[in-house]
Protein backbone atom coordinates (compact mmCIF):
# COMPACT_ATOMS: atom_id res chain seq x y z
CA UNK A 1 0.00 0.00 0.00
CA UNK A 2 2.80 2.36 0.87
CA UNK A 3 4.41 1.65 -2.47
CA UNK A 4 1.22 2.69 -4.22
CA UNK A 5 1.13 5.94 -2.33
CA UNK A 6 4.65 6.85 -3.24
CA UNK A 7 3.95 6.03 -6.85
CA UNK A 8 0.89 8.25 -6.70
CA UNK A 9 3.03 11.07 -5.36
CA UNK A 10 5.52 10.60 -8.15
CA UNK A 11 2.75 10.83 -10.69
CA UNK A 12 1.26 13.88 -9.07
CA UNK A 13 4.64 15.54 -9.31
CA UNK A 14 4.91 14.45 -12.93
CA UNK A 15 1.51 15.83 -13.87
CA UNK A 16 2.36 19.15 -12.28
CA UNK A 17 5.50 19.25 -14.38
CA UNK A 18 3.21 18.81 -17.39
CA UNK A 19 4.47 15.43 -18.44
CA UNK A 20 1.55 13.31 -19.69
CA UNK A 21 3.83 10.39 -20.44
CA UNK A 22 4.48 9.80 -16.77
CA UNK A 23 0.76 9.37 -16.27
CA UNK A 24 0.75 6.71 -18.94
CA UNK A 25 3.74 5.01 -17.39
CA UNK A 26 2.00 5.00 -14.02
CA UNK A 27 -1.15 3.59 -15.54
CA UNK A 28 0.82 0.80 -17.19
CA UNK A 29 2.69 0.13 -13.95
CA UNK A 30 -0.56 -0.32 -12.05
CA UNK A 31 -1.71 -2.82 -14.68
CA UNK A 32 1.49 -4.81 -14.28
CA UNK A 33 1.13 -4.76 -10.50
CA UNK A 34 -2.47 -5.90 -10.89
CA UNK A 35 -1.41 -8.77 -13.13
CA UNK A 36 1.12 -9.97 -10.56
CA UNK A 37 -1.39 -9.59 -7.72
CA UNK A 38 -4.01 -11.69 -9.53
CA UNK A 39 -1.58 -14.53 -10.10
CA UNK A 40 -0.42 -14.48 -6.45
CA UNK A 41 -4.03 -14.27 -5.37
CA UNK A 42 -4.90 -17.56 -7.07
CA UNK A 43 -1.67 -19.15 -5.94
CA UNK A 44 -2.42 -18.39 -2.30
CA UNK A 45 -5.92 -19.72 -2.63
CA UNK A 46 -4.42 -23.22 -2.80
CA UNK A 47 -4.79 -23.80 0.94
CA UNK A 48 -7.26 -22.52 3.55
CA UNK A 49 -4.41 -21.13 5.66
CA UNK A 50 -3.20 -18.67 3.02
CA UNK A 51 -6.50 -18.17 1.18
CA UNK A 52 -7.52 -14.95 2.89
CA UNK A 53 -4.17 -13.42 2.06
CA UNK A 54 -4.91 -14.44 -1.54
CA UNK A 55 -8.20 -12.60 -1.49
CA UNK A 56 -6.60 -9.47 -0.06
CA UNK A 57 -3.84 -9.39 -2.63
CA UNK A 58 -6.53 -9.79 -5.31
CA UNK A 59 -8.31 -6.74 -3.91
CA UNK A 60 -5.07 -4.75 -3.97
CA UNK A 61 -4.50 -5.74 -7.58
CA UNK A 62 -8.01 -4.69 -8.55
CA UNK A 63 -7.69 -1.36 -6.71
CA UNK A 64 -4.40 -0.69 -8.49
CA UNK A 65 -5.92 -1.48 -11.89
CA UNK A 66 -8.92 0.75 -11.27
CA UNK A 67 -6.72 3.66 -10.14
CA UNK A 68 -4.62 3.12 -13.23
CA UNK A 69 -7.72 3.14 -15.44
CA UNK A 70 -9.03 6.33 -13.84
CA UNK A 71 -5.72 8.04 -14.63
CA UNK A 72 -5.83 7.25 -18.37
CA UNK A 73 -5.52 10.59 -20.07
CA UNK A 74 -8.22 10.05 -22.68
CA UNK A 75 -10.80 10.21 -19.91
CA UNK A 76 -12.45 13.61 -20.07
CA UNK A 77 -15.32 13.26 -17.61
CA UNK A 78 -15.71 11.36 -14.38
CA UNK A 79 -19.39 11.85 -13.60
CA UNK A 80 -20.61 8.75 -15.44
CA UNK A 81 -17.75 6.63 -14.19
CA UNK A 82 -18.58 7.58 -10.61
CA UNK A 83 -22.28 6.94 -11.25
CA UNK A 84 -21.37 3.48 -12.50
CA UNK A 85 -19.09 2.75 -9.57
CA UNK A 86 -21.73 3.85 -7.05
CA UNK A 87 -24.44 1.79 -8.77
CA UNK A 88 -22.13 -1.21 -8.87
CA UNK A 89 -21.42 -0.93 -5.16
CA UNK A 90 -25.14 -0.66 -4.44
CA UNK A 91 -25.81 -3.86 -6.39
CA UNK A 92 -22.78 -5.86 -5.28
CA UNK A 93 -22.31 -5.05 -1.59
CA UNK A 94 -25.80 -5.80 -0.18
CA UNK A 95 -25.88 -9.12 -2.05
CA UNK A 96 -22.52 -10.08 -0.60
CA UNK A 97 -23.39 -9.05 2.94
CA UNK A 98 -26.90 -10.39 3.41
CA UNK A 99 -27.15 -13.29 1.03
CA UNK A 100 -27.52 -16.62 2.87
CA UNK A 101 -24.76 -19.13 2.16
CA UNK A 102 -27.28 -21.58 0.75
CA UNK A 103 -27.85 -19.11 -2.10
CA UNK A 104 -24.21 -19.12 -3.20
CA UNK A 105 -24.85 -21.10 -6.42
CA UNK A 106 -27.54 -18.63 -7.52
CA UNK A 107 -25.35 -15.67 -6.72
CA UNK A 108 -22.50 -17.16 -8.66
CA UNK A 109 -24.71 -17.67 -11.71
CA UNK A 110 -26.02 -14.13 -11.33
CA UNK A 111 -22.55 -12.64 -11.15
CA UNK A 112 -21.50 -14.58 -14.25
CA UNK A 113 -24.46 -12.95 -15.96
CA UNK A 114 -23.35 -9.47 -14.79
CA UNK A 115 -19.75 -10.00 -15.83
CA UNK A 116 -20.65 -11.40 -19.22
CA UNK A 117 -23.14 -8.61 -19.90
CA UNK A 118 -20.53 -6.02 -18.98
CA UNK A 119 -18.12 -7.64 -21.45
CA UNK A 120 -20.77 -7.73 -24.17
CA UNK A 121 -21.69 -4.08 -23.56
CA UNK A 122 -18.07 -2.92 -23.74
CA UNK A 123 -17.71 -4.81 -27.02
CA UNK A 124 -20.92 -3.26 -28.32
CA UNK A 125 -19.83 0.25 -27.32
CA UNK A 126 -16.47 -0.31 -28.98
CA UNK A 127 -18.20 -1.43 -32.16
CA UNK A 128 -20.47 1.61 -32.33
CA UNK A 129 -17.67 4.04 -31.50
CA UNK A 130 -15.66 2.57 -34.36
CA UNK A 131 -18.66 2.66 -36.69
CA UNK A 132 -19.91 6.17 -35.88
CA UNK A 133 -16.88 8.06 -34.64
CA UNK A 134 -13.99 6.07 -36.00
CA UNK A 135 -11.34 4.96 -36.60
CA UNK A 136 -12.86 1.96 -38.37
CA UNK A 137 -11.87 -1.50 -37.19
CA UNK A 138 -9.80 -3.84 -39.33
CA UNK A 139 -11.04 -7.33 -40.22
CA UNK A 140 -9.07 -9.22 -37.57
CA UNK A 141 -10.11 -6.94 -34.71
CA UNK A 142 -13.68 -7.05 -35.96
CA UNK A 143 -13.65 -10.85 -36.01
CA UNK A 144 -12.33 -11.02 -32.44
CA UNK A 145 -14.85 -8.40 -31.35
CA UNK A 146 -17.67 -10.49 -32.83
CA UNK A 147 -16.54 -13.62 -30.95
CA UNK A 148 -16.18 -11.57 -27.78
CA UNK A 149 -19.69 -10.14 -28.04
CA UNK A 150 -21.11 -13.54 -28.99
CA UNK A 151 -19.51 -15.22 -26.00
CA UNK A 152 -20.50 -12.38 -23.67
CA UNK A 153 -24.12 -12.31 -24.83
CA UNK A 154 -24.63 -16.08 -24.72
CA UNK A 155 -23.02 -16.32 -21.30
CA UNK A 156 -25.30 -13.52 -20.11
CA UNK A 157 -28.57 -15.24 -21.02
CA UNK A 158 -27.18 -18.70 -20.27
CA UNK A 159 -26.21 -17.63 -16.75
CA UNK A 160 -29.63 -16.06 -16.26
CA UNK A 161 -31.21 -19.40 -17.16
CA UNK A 162 -28.86 -21.17 -14.74
CA UNK A 163 -29.82 -18.61 -12.10
CA UNK A 164 -33.49 -19.28 -12.78
CA UNK A 165 -33.02 -23.01 -12.38
CA UNK A 166 -31.01 -22.66 -9.17
CA UNK A 167 -33.48 -20.18 -7.71
CA UNK A 168 -36.24 -22.59 -8.77
CA UNK A 169 -37.99 -19.94 -10.85
CA UNK A 170 -37.52 -22.28 -13.80
CA UNK A 171 -38.13 -26.03 -13.69
CA UNK A 172 -35.00 -27.95 -12.72
CA UNK A 173 -35.78 -30.77 -15.10
CA UNK A 174 -34.42 -30.42 -18.63
CA UNK A 175 -36.71 -28.59 -21.04
CA UNK A 176 -36.48 -30.43 -24.32
CA UNK A 177 -38.13 -30.49 -27.71
CA UNK A 178 -37.71 -32.47 -30.88
CA UNK A 179 -34.66 -31.61 -32.97
CA UNK A 180 -33.39 -29.40 -30.17
CA UNK A 181 -29.70 -29.93 -30.79
CA UNK A 182 -30.08 -29.30 -34.55
CA UNK A 183 -32.04 -26.15 -33.86
CA UNK A 184 -29.44 -24.93 -31.37
CA UNK A 185 -26.62 -25.51 -33.81
CA UNK A 186 -28.59 -23.72 -36.50
CA UNK A 187 -28.89 -20.65 -34.26
CA UNK A 188 -25.19 -20.80 -33.36
CA UNK A 189 -24.33 -21.26 -37.04
CA UNK A 190 -26.41 -18.21 -37.98
CA UNK A 191 -24.73 -16.16 -35.25
CA UNK A 192 -21.28 -17.20 -36.44
CA UNK A 193 -22.22 -16.47 -40.06
CA UNK A 194 -23.39 -12.99 -39.04
CA UNK A 195 -20.05 -12.51 -37.33
CA UNK A 196 -18.16 -13.60 -40.44
CA UNK A 197 -20.11 -11.19 -42.66
CA UNK A 198 -19.52 -8.38 -40.17
CA UNK A 199 -15.80 -9.12 -40.07
CA UNK A 200 -15.55 -9.02 -43.84
CA UNK A 201 -17.67 -5.91 -44.09
CA UNK A 202 -17.66 -3.96 -40.78
CA UNK A 203 -19.81 -1.21 -42.30
CA UNK A 204 -22.91 -3.41 -42.26
CA UNK A 205 -23.78 -2.11 -38.80
CA UNK A 206 -27.39 -3.30 -38.94
CA UNK A 207 -26.14 -6.86 -38.65
CA UNK A 208 -24.67 -6.19 -35.22
CA UNK A 209 -27.97 -6.23 -33.27
CA UNK A 210 -28.81 -9.47 -35.10
CA UNK A 211 -25.58 -10.99 -33.81
CA UNK A 212 -26.48 -9.94 -30.27
CA UNK A 213 -30.00 -11.37 -30.48
CA UNK A 214 -28.86 -14.67 -31.98
CA UNK A 215 -26.15 -15.03 -29.34
CA UNK A 216 -28.58 -14.33 -26.51
CA UNK A 217 -31.10 -16.79 -27.95
CA UNK A 218 -28.39 -19.44 -28.19
CA UNK A 219 -27.46 -18.84 -24.56
CA UNK A 220 -31.04 -19.59 -23.48
CA UNK A 221 -31.30 -22.65 -25.69
CA UNK A 222 -27.96 -24.00 -24.51
CA UNK A 223 -28.94 -24.08 -20.83
CA UNK A 224 -32.64 -25.01 -20.74
CA UNK A 225 -32.06 -28.69 -21.63
CA UNK A 226 -29.57 -29.13 -18.80
CA UNK A 227 -30.87 -30.58 -15.54
CA UNK A 228 -30.29 -29.20 -12.05
CA UNK A 229 -27.89 -31.98 -11.04
CA UNK A 230 -25.54 -30.95 -13.85
CA UNK A 231 -25.36 -27.38 -12.61
CA UNK A 232 -21.86 -27.76 -11.07
CA UNK A 233 -20.44 -28.39 -14.54
CA UNK A 234 -22.57 -25.73 -16.19
CA UNK A 235 -21.66 -23.04 -13.66
CA UNK A 236 -17.97 -23.85 -14.08
CA UNK A 237 -18.32 -23.72 -17.84
CA UNK A 238 -20.13 -20.37 -17.75
CA UNK A 239 -17.37 -19.13 -15.44
CA UNK A 240 -14.88 -20.08 -18.11
CA UNK A 241 -16.88 -18.36 -20.87
CA UNK A 242 -17.17 -15.15 -18.86
CA UNK A 243 -13.40 -15.16 -18.39
CA UNK A 244 -12.76 -15.86 -22.05
CA UNK A 245 -14.93 -12.95 -23.15
CA UNK A 246 -12.95 -10.61 -20.86
CA UNK A 247 -9.78 -12.09 -22.33
CA UNK A 248 -10.91 -11.50 -25.93
CA UNK A 249 -11.80 -7.95 -24.99
CA UNK A 250 -8.13 -7.55 -24.10
CA UNK A 251 -7.21 -8.62 -27.65
CA UNK A 252 -9.59 -6.03 -29.10
CA UNK A 253 -8.48 -3.18 -26.83
CA UNK A 254 -4.79 -4.19 -26.80
CA UNK A 255 -4.91 -4.45 -23.03
CA UNK A 256 -2.74 -7.26 -21.73
CA UNK A 257 -4.05 -7.07 -18.18
CA UNK A 258 -7.47 -8.04 -19.51
CA UNK A 259 -5.86 -10.92 -21.39
CA UNK A 260 -4.07 -12.19 -18.27
CA UNK A 261 -7.02 -11.84 -15.89
CA UNK A 262 -9.44 -13.27 -18.44
CA UNK A 263 -7.15 -16.19 -19.19
CA UNK A 264 -6.83 -16.97 -15.46
CA UNK A 265 -10.60 -16.98 -15.06
CA UNK A 266 -11.05 -18.95 -18.27
CA UNK A 267 -8.51 -21.53 -17.11
CA UNK A 268 -10.13 -21.77 -13.68
CA UNK A 269 -13.60 -22.42 -15.08
CA UNK A 270 -12.16 -24.91 -17.53
CA UNK A 271 -10.28 -26.87 -14.85
CA UNK A 272 -13.35 -26.91 -12.60
CA UNK A 273 -15.67 -28.13 -15.33
CA UNK A 274 -13.25 -30.93 -16.21
CA UNK A 275 -13.10 -31.96 -12.54
CA UNK A 276 -16.90 -31.94 -12.40
CA UNK A 277 -17.22 -33.99 -15.59
CA UNK A 278 -14.71 -36.53 -14.31
CA UNK A 279 -16.57 -36.77 -11.02
CA UNK A 280 -19.65 -37.80 -12.98
CA UNK A 281 -17.76 -39.90 -15.52
CA UNK A 282 -19.34 -37.91 -18.33
CA UNK A 283 -18.06 -35.88 -21.24
CA UNK A 284 -18.63 -32.21 -21.95
CA UNK A 285 -20.83 -33.08 -24.93
CA UNK A 286 -22.89 -35.41 -22.80
CA UNK A 287 -23.44 -32.74 -20.14
CA UNK A 288 -24.27 -30.02 -22.67
CA UNK A 289 -26.37 -31.98 -25.12
CA UNK A 290 -27.41 -35.10 -23.23
CA UNK A 291 -30.44 -33.59 -21.43
CA UNK A 292 -29.44 -35.67 -18.40
CA UNK A 293 -31.92 -35.84 -15.57
CA UNK A 294 -35.04 -36.49 -17.58
CA UNK A 295 -37.44 -38.90 -15.94
CA UNK A 296 -36.24 -42.38 -16.74
CA UNK A 297 -39.19 -43.96 -18.50
CA UNK A 298 -37.65 -47.41 -18.76
CA UNK A 299 -40.76 -49.02 -17.36
CA UNK A 300 -40.64 -52.69 -16.43
CA UNK A 301 -37.00 -52.51 -15.43
CA UNK A 302 -36.81 -53.65 -11.83
CA UNK A 303 -40.18 -55.33 -11.90
CA UNK A 304 -40.13 -56.92 -8.48
CA UNK A 305 -41.36 -54.69 -5.73
CA UNK A 306 -38.57 -54.10 -3.27
CA UNK A 307 -39.12 -52.64 0.11
CA UNK A 308 -36.97 -50.37 2.15
CA UNK A 309 -36.66 -50.50 5.89
CA UNK A 310 -37.51 -47.42 7.87
CA UNK A 311 -35.66 -46.55 11.01
CA UNK A 312 -36.47 -44.10 13.75
CA UNK A 313 -34.31 -41.20 14.91
CA UNK A 314 -34.23 -42.77 18.40
CA UNK A 315 -32.58 -45.95 17.15
CA UNK A 316 -30.28 -44.02 14.87
CA UNK A 317 -29.17 -41.79 17.74
CA UNK A 318 -28.47 -44.80 19.93
CA UNK A 319 -26.48 -46.58 17.27
CA UNK A 320 -24.42 -43.52 16.43
CA UNK A 321 -23.80 -42.88 20.11
CA UNK A 322 -22.39 -46.38 20.52
CA UNK A 323 -20.31 -46.17 17.34
CA UNK A 324 -16.62 -45.50 17.15
CA UNK A 325 -16.68 -43.81 13.79
CA UNK A 326 -19.45 -42.08 11.87
CA UNK A 327 -19.08 -40.74 8.35
CA UNK A 328 -21.63 -38.22 7.19
CA UNK A 329 -22.32 -37.89 3.45
CA UNK A 330 -24.05 -34.58 2.75
CA UNK A 331 -25.83 -33.76 -0.49
CA UNK A 332 -28.08 -31.20 -2.12
CA UNK A 333 -30.91 -32.21 0.23
CA UNK A 334 -28.93 -30.82 3.15
CA UNK A 335 -28.55 -27.51 1.34
CA UNK A 336 -32.22 -27.29 0.39
CA UNK A 337 -33.34 -28.00 3.94
CA UNK A 338 -30.64 -25.64 5.31
CA UNK A 339 -29.78 -28.39 7.76
CA UNK A 340 -26.09 -27.54 8.18
CA UNK A 341 -26.47 -25.94 11.63
CA UNK A 342 -28.44 -28.91 12.95
CA UNK A 343 -25.72 -31.13 11.51
CA UNK A 344 -23.24 -29.13 13.51
CA UNK A 345 -25.24 -29.71 16.72
CA UNK A 346 -25.29 -33.42 16.07
CA UNK A 347 -21.56 -33.32 15.23
CA UNK A 348 -20.88 -31.61 18.58
CA UNK A 349 -22.91 -34.14 20.55
CA UNK A 350 -21.18 -37.08 18.91
CA UNK A 351 -17.66 -35.66 19.20
CA UNK A 352 -18.32 -34.93 22.86
CA UNK A 353 -18.92 -38.65 23.34
CA UNK A 354 -15.64 -39.49 21.67
CA UNK A 355 -17.19 -40.66 18.41
CA UNK A 356 -14.93 -39.97 15.43
CA UNK A 357 -17.10 -37.98 13.00
CA UNK A 358 -15.98 -37.15 9.47
CA UNK A 359 -17.65 -35.83 6.37
CA UNK A 360 -17.27 -37.44 2.97
CA UNK A 361 -17.51 -34.85 0.21
CA UNK A 362 -18.25 -35.88 -3.35
CA UNK A 363 -17.00 -33.34 -5.92
CA UNK A 364 -20.46 -32.89 -7.46
CA UNK A 365 -22.48 -32.97 -4.25
CA UNK A 366 -24.70 -29.91 -4.32
CA UNK A 367 -25.18 -27.43 -7.09
CA UNK A 368 -21.70 -25.99 -7.57
CA UNK A 369 -18.09 -27.02 -7.01
CA UNK A 370 -17.27 -26.91 -3.29
CA UNK A 371 -20.89 -26.22 -2.29
CA UNK A 372 -20.96 -28.67 0.66
CA UNK A 373 -17.64 -27.41 2.07
CA UNK A 374 -18.88 -23.84 2.23
CA UNK A 375 -22.13 -24.82 3.94
CA UNK A 376 -20.39 -26.98 6.53
CA UNK A 377 -17.74 -24.33 7.11
CA UNK A 378 -20.55 -21.84 7.67
CA UNK A 379 -21.84 -24.10 10.44
CA UNK A 380 -18.33 -23.91 11.92
CA UNK A 381 -17.42 -27.52 11.32
CA UNK A 382 -13.60 -27.66 11.30
CA UNK A 383 -12.38 -28.10 7.74
CA UNK A 384 -9.99 -30.92 8.60
CA UNK A 385 -13.11 -33.07 9.12
CA UNK A 386 -14.23 -32.51 5.52
CA UNK A 387 -12.59 -35.28 3.51
CA UNK A 388 -12.61 -35.73 -0.24
CA UNK A 389 -14.12 -38.81 -1.80
CA UNK A 390 -10.88 -40.49 -2.89
CA UNK A 391 -9.29 -40.06 0.50
CA UNK A 392 -12.16 -41.28 2.63
CA UNK A 393 -13.45 -44.20 0.58
CA UNK A 394 -10.84 -46.53 2.06
CA UNK A 395 -12.20 -45.87 5.56
CA UNK A 396 -15.74 -47.11 5.01
CA UNK A 397 -15.10 -50.83 5.75
CA UNK A 398 -13.97 -49.79 9.24
CA UNK A 399 -16.77 -47.27 9.65
CA UNK A 400 -19.65 -48.14 11.97
CA UNK A 401 -22.29 -45.78 10.65
CA UNK A 402 -22.58 -43.98 7.34
CA UNK A 403 -25.20 -41.24 7.59
CA UNK A 404 -26.43 -40.01 4.22
CA UNK A 405 -28.04 -36.56 4.45
CA UNK A 406 -29.88 -35.62 1.29
CA UNK A 407 -27.36 -37.20 -1.06
CA UNK A 408 -28.53 -39.77 -3.55
CA UNK A 409 -26.79 -40.56 -6.83
CA UNK A 410 -23.32 -40.04 -5.35
CA UNK A 411 -23.86 -43.05 -3.02
CA UNK A 412 -25.66 -45.34 -5.49
CA UNK A 413 -23.71 -48.61 -5.77
CA UNK A 414 -25.35 -49.20 -9.16
CA UNK A 415 -22.70 -46.85 -10.55
CA UNK A 416 -20.15 -49.60 -9.88
CA UNK A 417 -21.74 -52.61 -11.54
CA UNK A 418 -25.01 -51.86 -13.33
CA UNK A 419 -24.08 -51.20 -16.94
CA UNK A 420 -27.64 -50.14 -17.75
CA UNK A 421 -27.70 -47.44 -15.13
CA UNK A 422 -27.36 -43.89 -16.47
CA UNK A 423 -24.77 -43.22 -13.78
CA UNK A 424 -22.70 -46.34 -14.54
CA UNK A 425 -18.99 -45.59 -14.14
CA UNK A 426 -19.49 -42.51 -12.00
CA UNK A 427 -17.11 -42.55 -9.02
CA UNK A 428 -19.17 -42.82 -5.85
CA UNK A 429 -18.76 -42.59 -2.10
CA UNK A 430 -18.64 -46.12 -0.70
CA UNK A 431 -21.36 -45.61 1.90
CA UNK A 432 -22.61 -49.16 1.26
CA UNK A 433 -19.37 -50.57 2.66
CA UNK A 434 -20.03 -49.19 6.14
CA UNK A 435 -21.43 -51.56 8.77
CA UNK A 436 -24.71 -49.70 9.08
CA UNK A 437 -26.20 -47.09 6.79
CA UNK A 438 -28.77 -44.48 7.72
CA UNK A 439 -30.16 -42.39 4.89
CA UNK A 440 -32.19 -39.24 5.43
CA UNK A 441 -34.47 -38.63 2.50
CA UNK A 442 -37.38 -36.31 1.91
CA UNK A 443 -39.65 -38.84 0.22
CA UNK A 444 -39.69 -42.31 -1.23
CA UNK A 445 -39.38 -40.98 -4.77
CA UNK A 446 -36.18 -41.68 -6.64
CA UNK A 447 -33.60 -38.90 -6.64
CA UNK A 448 -33.14 -36.10 -9.09
CA UNK A 449 -31.91 -38.16 -11.99
CA UNK A 450 -34.86 -40.48 -11.49
CA UNK A 451 -32.62 -43.45 -10.79
CA UNK A 452 -33.47 -46.09 -8.20
CA UNK A 453 -30.83 -46.20 -5.50
CA UNK A 454 -29.73 -49.74 -4.59
CA UNK A 455 -28.22 -48.50 -1.37
CA UNK A 456 -31.68 -48.05 0.14
CA UNK A 457 -32.56 -51.72 -0.38
CA UNK A 458 -29.54 -53.19 1.39
CA UNK A 459 -30.11 -55.18 4.57
CA UNK A 460 -27.96 -52.84 6.58
CA UNK A 461 -29.70 -49.68 5.41
CA UNK A 462 -32.36 -47.89 7.38
CA UNK A 463 -34.25 -44.96 5.93
CA UNK A 464 -35.14 -41.87 7.92
CA UNK A 465 -37.87 -40.20 5.90
CA UNK A 466 -38.45 -36.51 6.38
CA UNK A 467 -37.01 -33.06 5.92
CA UNK A 468 -33.25 -33.17 6.52
CA UNK A 469 -33.34 -30.29 8.99
CA UNK A 470 -36.16 -31.82 11.04
CA UNK A 471 -34.62 -35.31 11.10
CA UNK A 472 -31.11 -34.14 11.96
CA UNK A 473 -32.58 -31.79 14.56
CA UNK A 474 -34.40 -34.75 16.10
CA UNK A 475 -31.18 -36.80 16.08
CA UNK A 476 -29.33 -33.99 17.82
CA UNK A 477 -32.12 -33.69 20.40
CA UNK A 478 -32.09 -37.42 21.10
CA UNK A 479 -28.34 -37.29 21.58
CA UNK A 480 -28.54 -34.28 23.89
CA UNK A 481 -31.27 -35.82 26.05
CA UNK A 482 -29.66 -39.22 26.16
CA UNK A 483 -26.46 -37.56 27.26
CA UNK A 484 -27.10 -38.33 30.96
CA UNK A 485 -25.98 -41.92 31.05
Amino acid at each position, binding site marked *: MSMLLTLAEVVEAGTKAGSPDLQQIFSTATYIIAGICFIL*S*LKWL*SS*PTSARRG*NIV*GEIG*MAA*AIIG*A*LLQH*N*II*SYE*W*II*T*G*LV*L*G*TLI*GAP*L*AIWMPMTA*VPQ*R*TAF*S*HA*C*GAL*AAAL*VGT*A*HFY*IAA*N*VGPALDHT*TMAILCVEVLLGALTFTGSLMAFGKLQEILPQRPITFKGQNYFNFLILGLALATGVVLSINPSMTMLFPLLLVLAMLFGVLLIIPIGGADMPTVIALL*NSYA*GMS*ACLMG*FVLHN*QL*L*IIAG*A*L*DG*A*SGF*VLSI*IMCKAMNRSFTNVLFGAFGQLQTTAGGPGEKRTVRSGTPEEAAQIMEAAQSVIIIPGYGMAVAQAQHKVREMFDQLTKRGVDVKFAIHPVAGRMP*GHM*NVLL*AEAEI*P*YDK*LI*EMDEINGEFPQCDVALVIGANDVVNPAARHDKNSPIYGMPIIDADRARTVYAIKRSKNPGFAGIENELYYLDKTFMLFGDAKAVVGELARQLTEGGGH
Partner: protein
Amino acid sequence: MSLFDQFIGHLYVFILAAFLGLSVITRVSPMLHTPLMSLTNAISAISVVAAIEIAGKQESTLATILGTTAVALAFANVVGGFMITDRMLKMFKKREPAAAKH
Protein backbone atom coordinates in the same frame (compact mmCIF):
# COMPACT_ATOMS: atom_id res chain seq x y z
CA MET B 1 4.77 -2.67 -34.95
CA SER B 2 2.13 -4.01 -37.28
CA LEU B 3 -1.28 -5.06 -36.05
CA PHE B 4 -0.42 -8.66 -36.85
CA ASP B 5 2.67 -8.53 -34.63
CA GLN B 6 0.58 -7.03 -31.86
CA PHE B 7 -1.87 -9.91 -32.01
CA ILE B 8 0.94 -12.42 -31.95
CA GLY B 9 2.29 -10.65 -28.85
CA HIS B 10 -1.14 -10.85 -27.22
CA LEU B 11 -1.38 -14.50 -28.16
CA TYR B 12 1.88 -15.24 -26.36
CA VAL B 13 0.62 -13.43 -23.27
CA PHE B 14 -2.61 -15.39 -23.46
CA ILE B 15 -0.91 -18.77 -23.84
CA LEU B 16 1.48 -18.14 -20.96
CA ALA B 17 -1.29 -16.82 -18.71
CA ALA B 18 -3.57 -19.74 -19.57
CA PHE B 19 -0.91 -22.35 -18.75
CA LEU B 20 0.01 -20.51 -15.57
CA GLY B 21 -3.68 -20.44 -14.69
CA LEU B 22 -4.07 -24.17 -15.34
CA SER B 23 -1.12 -25.08 -13.13
CA VAL B 24 -2.10 -22.71 -10.32
CA ILE B 25 -5.77 -23.68 -10.33
CA THR B 26 -5.15 -27.44 -10.27
CA ARG B 27 -3.36 -26.89 -6.95
CA VAL B 28 -6.35 -25.22 -5.33
CA SER B 29 -7.87 -27.47 -2.67
CA PRO B 30 -11.26 -28.84 -3.78
CA MET B 31 -12.56 -27.63 -0.45
CA LEU B 32 -12.12 -24.08 -1.69
CA HIS B 33 -13.70 -24.48 -5.12
CA THR B 34 -16.66 -22.24 -4.31
CA PRO B 35 -14.48 -19.34 -3.04
CA LEU B 36 -12.21 -19.95 -6.04
CA MET B 37 -15.16 -19.36 -8.30
CA SER B 38 -16.22 -16.16 -6.61
CA LEU B 39 -12.63 -14.91 -6.54
CA THR B 40 -12.00 -15.58 -10.24
CA ASN B 41 -15.35 -13.98 -10.89
CA ALA B 42 -14.17 -10.83 -9.14
CA ILE B 43 -10.85 -10.95 -10.99
CA SER B 44 -12.46 -11.35 -14.40
CA ALA B 45 -14.49 -8.25 -13.60
CA ILE B 46 -11.23 -6.54 -14.58
CA SER B 47 -13.27 -5.59 -17.67
CA VAL B 48 -14.27 -2.69 -15.42
CA VAL B 49 -11.08 -0.91 -16.59
CA ALA B 50 -12.23 -1.09 -20.21
CA ALA B 51 -15.70 0.05 -19.20
CA ILE B 52 -14.24 3.00 -17.26
CA GLU B 53 -12.40 4.15 -20.36
CA ILE B 54 -15.52 3.96 -22.52
CA ALA B 55 -17.72 5.70 -19.94
CA GLY B 56 -15.11 8.43 -19.43
CA LYS B 57 -14.02 9.33 -22.92
CA GLN B 58 -17.57 10.27 -23.97
CA GLU B 59 -17.34 9.55 -27.67
CA SER B 60 -21.09 9.26 -28.13
CA THR B 61 -24.22 9.17 -25.98
CA LEU B 62 -24.80 5.50 -26.79
CA ALA B 63 -21.24 4.58 -25.89
CA THR B 64 -21.45 6.51 -22.60
CA ILE B 65 -24.70 4.76 -21.64
CA LEU B 66 -23.28 1.34 -22.50
CA GLY B 67 -20.02 2.17 -20.77
CA THR B 68 -21.69 3.38 -17.58
CA THR B 69 -23.90 0.29 -17.43
CA ALA B 70 -20.85 -1.89 -17.95
CA VAL B 71 -18.97 -0.06 -15.17
CA ALA B 72 -21.89 -0.68 -12.80
CA LEU B 73 -22.21 -4.39 -13.70
CA ALA B 74 -18.50 -5.12 -13.59
CA PHE B 75 -17.96 -3.16 -10.40
CA ALA B 76 -20.86 -5.01 -8.77
CA ASN B 77 -18.84 -8.17 -9.42
CA VAL B 78 -15.66 -6.59 -8.09
CA VAL B 79 -17.27 -5.46 -4.83
CA GLY B 80 -19.54 -8.47 -4.40
CA GLY B 81 -16.96 -11.01 -5.54
CA PHE B 82 -14.21 -10.00 -3.15
CA MET B 83 -16.60 -9.45 -0.24
CA ILE B 84 -18.33 -12.79 -0.55
CA THR B 85 -15.00 -14.58 -1.03
CA ASP B 86 -13.74 -13.05 2.18
CA ARG B 87 -16.98 -13.95 3.95
CA MET B 88 -16.60 -17.56 2.87
CA LEU B 89 -12.88 -17.84 3.60
CA LYS B 90 -13.40 -16.46 7.10
CA MET B 91 -15.61 -19.46 7.83
CA PHE B 92 -12.96 -22.07 7.10
CA LYS B 93 -11.48 -22.84 10.51
CA LYS B 94 -9.29 -25.73 11.41
CA ARG B 95 -10.10 -26.14 15.07
CA GLU B 96 -13.05 -25.37 17.24
CA PRO B 97 -13.25 -21.69 18.03
CA ALA B 98 -12.54 -22.05 21.77
CA ALA B 99 -14.38 -19.09 23.25
CA ALA B 100 -16.14 -17.50 20.31
CA LYS B 101 -19.29 -19.57 20.30
CA HIS B 102 -22.30 -17.33 20.27
